[in-house]
């Protein structure tokens, strides 16, 4: 009986999922946000985030005989890092949404797989940084956050290139 119940539950999940998707597809919500790419490079916007856990500040405090102060600073910076990560994730989602729109229009068959790979890499890195932050593994955090921002920047760059190619397309067709 348990087998049957599990199977029916699985099937109902599939059925409800399909139904919800079809419903959403046929009854779209009005006014989705207009996606856009960030004006400033991500490395510039998120530079303070990458510097949050550089060893200098903590070494200085430890050398000055203030280990408690160093601990407090770490706690505070962890909170700040979490806020930054939330912001970065929102920005990334917006750019990824833009990429998905571009993928449907693009003639480059490599763009969608590349954007998907970037997204997977980004979310993997984000998860790793969040785990390190939660577990208190500070040592490699600056490198990991820099890599995270680079991953975001690469997606922005790919989107810019694709958007530029698409923008030139109508002009080429007109000419």
């Amino acid at each position, binding site marked *: 009986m348990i087998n049957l119940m599990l199977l029916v539950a699985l099937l109902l999940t599939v059925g409800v999922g399909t139904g919800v998707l079809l419903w959403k597809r046929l009854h779209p919500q009005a006014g989705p946000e207009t996606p*856009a790419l960030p004006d400033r490079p991500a490395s510039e916007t998120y530079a303070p985030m990458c510097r949050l856990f550089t060893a200098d500040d903590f070494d200085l405090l430890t050398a000055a005989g203030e280990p408690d102060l160093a601990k407090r600073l770490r706690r505070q910076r962890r909170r700040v890092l979490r806020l930054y990560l939330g912001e970065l994730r929102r920005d990334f989602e917006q750019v990824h949404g833009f990429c998905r729109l571009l993928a449907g229009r693009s003639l480059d068959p490599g763009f969608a797989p590349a954007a998907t790979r970037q997204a997977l890499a980004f979310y993997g890195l984000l998860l790793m940084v969040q785990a390190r932050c939660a577990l208190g593994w500070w040592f490699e955090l600056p490198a990991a956050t820099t890599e995270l921002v680079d991953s975001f920047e690469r997606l922005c760059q790919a989107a810019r290139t694709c*958007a530029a190619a698409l923008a030139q397309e109508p002009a080429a067709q007109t000419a």
Partner: protein
Amino acid sequence: METSAEFLTQGLVYAGLLVKIMLLARLGRLGLVRRYPVLSVYLAFSLLRNIAYRYLVFTGLGLFGRHGANALLVYTQPVLWVLYPLILLELYSRMLEEYPGVYRLGRMVLLGGLGSVTALCLGITAVAEQAGTAATDRYPFIAYMVLQDRAVFLGLSFLSLILLVFVSHYRLPVPRNVWILLACFGSYFFWSALVGAFRWHFGEVFRPARNLANALVYSLALAGAAWRLSTAGEEETSRARGLAGAASRELEAALALQLRSFNETLVRVLKQ
């Protein structure tokens, strides 16, 4: 009561035959046979199979030294199991054919999905075979076929969902006919898997209910397709057009924004 259910099932089977002929004729009249070759082959094959089955039932002829009608069903069932996923592949191709940018990724997702779904269904079938069933079937081979049938339809349900998730994720405008066919066949796959699960669990007792429910849903699915398919449906994207339009407007706005920002940067550089 049982007799009336059987009578109703027989009626629905004949109605299904009629609807199949109607759908095939409609595909031919609308000039969609070339556009949906696998679907047309499936309908033609299924129609001939049903007619042959009826003929063998009435005449009582044998086939390969066995009871003719049953042998026909058993030997031709795997062909249908192959044709169903091919129909889904065909719909998927029609969904993505105008979008070269996502075609490759779509193919990767499809192959990955097909592999995962096959592995999942094999796993579930193996567990079910190992655990056995509380119910009894007069013929173990029939019980085995029911189990395989359930696995195939379960896999097809999952595959339909994966395709839908992919197309929704990229917000691609899809021709209305493809939506109609996906909705009709998807609901039939889902229903067959659900009823197949009950049939496997409750055994032969559930057979009349399963036959009746399957015949009803199958006839309704085909009737829905025959009723809604149209030539214009190949061009239109149905109500999803609203979304496609919104997506398109979003994209235009975003591209305009990108260009404006690019131009502003260019002007700044030139001024410097």
